[in-house]
C-alpha cells in the first residue's frame, strides 16, 4: 500500500517544510516553599533551524539540552513563550497561517517509551484507527481497514496483531505500532524523539531500516532526536547539536562528523567509544556533568567546560554564524574580530 502525503506540497520543493525561528521556553523552577527567588529553567532559549522537504534532520545533545522540549514545542504539546514555527510557508497560529489542529495532522510524533505511549486498554487496530476516526471523521470501518494496511506497512501481519493489546507485544513490535499510529493521519513530517533508544541493538537496526523504507515510499521528512551519535550519523542528512537550550553547531552530517568546529561538538564526538581494542579512548575532553539548565552561565553556555574560554565568552553570547556552505557554529573563535584571542585562526582550517 502506498499512500501519498495527504496535503499537497503547497510551498514548492524549495520551501523548507519546517522553519523554526527563535523558539523559546523557560519553565519556572521549583524553588523551596519559602524562597521568593524566581529561578527559571531555560529549557529552549532562542533555537532556529529549518528542515528541507524529504530530509532527515538529526538533533543531538545530552540530557537537559532541550532537544525533547523543542520537539514538544513544535507540536504545541507545550506552548512556546516566544518564537515562530512555519510549516511549509504557513505560520503556525499566525493570521492567515495554519492552526495547531491542522498542524498536528501534518506533523506527528513517535516517543521513546513504546509502552506508555499506547493505550493499554485498546486493541492495536483501535489504537491505529483512533486518530483518523476522531481527527478526520473517517468512518470506523474504513479506519480499521486502513489500520490493517498500515500494520502491513510497518511489517506486522494484520491477522496476527490487529486484535492484540500493547502488553502482548515486544518493545520492537510496539514501536512499529507507534509508527503506524503516527502514520495513520498521513503526516508529512515525523518527529522521532529517541524513538529507537530503548530498543535492543538488533531490533533498533530493524526499526531504522523500516524508517528508511517509509521515508522513501511515503516521501516523509524526519526530525530525528537522539543522544546516540552513531544512529544520528547513520540516518541524518543534516545535524543540529544542542547544548543547554541553544544550538551550538549545525550542518551537513558529513561536515559535522568530519570537521566538528564547536569545542562542544568536538568533545561530544571524541567521547564516542572507539570500538577498537587497539585504539581505546585515552582521555576525555570534558570533565564533570552537563551543568544544570537552571540559571545557565552567562554569554556562551559552554564556557564553564570549554578549554578555550576567555573573557568575551562570559560577556557576549555567540551567535550562530555560517562558516561554510550551511555549516553554522556559535563560537567566538569562529568570528574574526569577536574579541577572542583565537578568533579567525580556526576558521581558516575549514575547507
Amino acid at each position, binding site marked *: 500500500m502506498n499512500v501519498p502525503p495527504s496535503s499537497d506540497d503547497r510551498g514548492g520543493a524549495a520551501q523548507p517544510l519546517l522553519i523554526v525561528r527563535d523558539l523559546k521556553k523557560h519553565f519556572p523552577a521549583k524553588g523551596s516553599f519559602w524562597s521568593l527567588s524566581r529561578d527559571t529553567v531555560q529549557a529552549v532559549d532562542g533555537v532556529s533551524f529549518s528542515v528541507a522537504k524529504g530530509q532527515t534532520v538529526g538533533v543531538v545533545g*545530552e*540530557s537537559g539540552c532541550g532537544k525533547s522540549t523543542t520537539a514538544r514545542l513544535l507540536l504545541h504539546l507545550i506552548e512556546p513563550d516566544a518564537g515562530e514555527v512555519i510549516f511549509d510557508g504557513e505560520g503556525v497560529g499566525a493570521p492567515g497561517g495554519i492552526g495547531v489542529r491542522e498542524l498536528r495532522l501534518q506533523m506527528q510524533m513517535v516517543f521513546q517509551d513504546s509502552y506508555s505511549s499506547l493505550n493499554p486498554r485498546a486493541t492495536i487496530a483501535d489504537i491505529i484507527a483512533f486518530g483518523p476516526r476522531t481527527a478526520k471523521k473517517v468512518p470506523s470501518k474504513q479506519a480499521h481497514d486502513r489500520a490493517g494496511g498500515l500494520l502491513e506497512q510497518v511489517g506486522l501481519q494484520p491477522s496476527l496483531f490487529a486484535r492484540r493489546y500493547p502488553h502482548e507485544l515486544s518493545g520492537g513490535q510496539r514501536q512499529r505500532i507507534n509508527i503506524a499510529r503516527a502514520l495513520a493521519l498521513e503526516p508529512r513530517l515525523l518527529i522521532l524523539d529517541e524513538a529507537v533508544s530503548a530498543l*535492543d541493538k538488533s531490533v533498533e537496526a530493524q526499526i531504522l531500516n523500516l524508517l528508511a523504507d517509509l521515508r522513501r515510499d511515503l516521501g516523509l521528512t524526519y526530525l530525528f532526536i537522539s543522544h546516540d551519535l552513531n544512529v544520528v*550519523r547513520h540516518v541524518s542528512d543534516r545535524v543540529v547539536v544542542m547544548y543547554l537550550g541553544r544550538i551550538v553547531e549545525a550542518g551537513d552530517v558529513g561536515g559535522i562528523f568530519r570537521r566538528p568546529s564547536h569545542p562542544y561538538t568536538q568533545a561530544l564526538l571524541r567521547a564516542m567509544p572507539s*570500538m577498537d581494542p587497539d585504539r581505546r*579512548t585515552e582521555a*576525555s575532553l*570534558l570533565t564533570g556533568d552537563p551543568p544544570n539548565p537552571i540559571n545557565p552561565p552567562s554569554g556562551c553556555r559552554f564556557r564553564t567546560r570549554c578549554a578555550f574560554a576567555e573573557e568575551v565568552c562570559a560577556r557576549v553570547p555567540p551567535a550562530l554564524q555560517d562558516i561554510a556552505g550551511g555549516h553554522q557554529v556559535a563560537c567566538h573563535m569562529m568570528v574574526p574580530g569577536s574579541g577572542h584571542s583565537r578568533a579567525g585562526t580556526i576558521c581558516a582550517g575549514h575547507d
Partner: protein
Amino acid sequence: MTETPAVDVENLVVRFHQRDRTIYAVNGVSFRLARGEVLGILGESGSGKTVTLRSLMRLLPHNCAIAGRVVLDGEDVTAASESRLEELRGNCIAMIFQEPATALDPVFTIGQQITETLVRHQGMPRGEARRRALEWLERVQIPSARRRLDSYPHEMSGGMRQRAMIALALSCNPTVLLADEPTTALDVTVQIQILLLLRELQRELGMAVVFVTHDVGAAVEVSDRLAVMYAGRFVETGAARDVLRKRAHPYTEGLLAANLHGVEPGSRLMTIPGAPPNLAALPSGCSFAPRCAYAMQQCGETMPAPVICGDGHVARCWRAEERIKVAA
C-alpha cells in the same frame, strides 16, 4: 603451580520456577578470570547476562535454582552459608549497578554509607573509616570531596552518583568487581569519564572485573576479553580483539553490524531477523539457529560443541571453523 583464578565458574545453570513454567535463564556458562583481568559480557535483554552476574554473588530471588560451581578467590560461593555470603559481599566481591539513584540509600549521606561499609566489613574505627571515605571520594575524582562526604545521593548529579557508588563498592578493596551496565544511563561525555575511571582503578587495584553491558563500545573500552551471550549461553568468547575482528559466531556478526560500527551512513543495515527465543521453551539445537542465515540441518538438531578458533578464542557454532577461514 598456577595462581588461583579470581573467578572460576563451571557449568553455571540458573532456572526460575514460575507457577506454570520454568525459565531457563542461564544454561551452562563456564569461565575463568585471573586477577587483574576484565571480562566484558555482551548481550541483549533477556540473554542472561545480568542473571549470570548476580549468581556470582548469589543475589537472586528465592524461586530460582542455581546449579554448577562458582569459586571466587578460592572460595566456593555455591556452597557458602548465608552468613559467610554476607561477609563476602562487599568485601571480597562488590557490585556496581546501572542506576546509582536506586542502589544508594537515599536517607544516608555518601560519607555515612562508605564509613558504615568500612566499619562493618573491615572493623575499622569510625574516625579512620571516615578519613578513608574521603580518600575514596577523592580517588574517584568527585570535586570538593570533603563537602560531598555530607551530601545525600539526591543532591548529586548522575555522573557524580555513579562515582560515589564506585567509591562505595571499592572501599573494601574487593578482589572481584561486578559491574552491571554502570554507564548505560549516562550521557556520552559522562560515560567515557566513568569508563576511563573504572579502567584506571582496575589497573591500580589489580581487580578482576566482570562488566556486563549491551553496548559494544563501552565493553571494548574496558575489557580484555569479551563473552557474547545469547539465550543463556556464551556463544563466543575470546580476546576483545579476536571477537571483534573474527566474529566467529553469526550472532556476534549480527550484533556488531547492528551497532552501526563501520557501516556506510544511510546504507541498509544488516539485521537479525525474528526475535530472541522464549527462555521457557528453548529449541533443542543451537538457540540461534531459527534466526541464523547460515543454519544447516544439524544446527536445529544438536547444540554445537565449543569450537576453538584461536588462542583462547572459542565459538559455539557448527560452522565456526569454516567462517574463520573465509574471514581470513
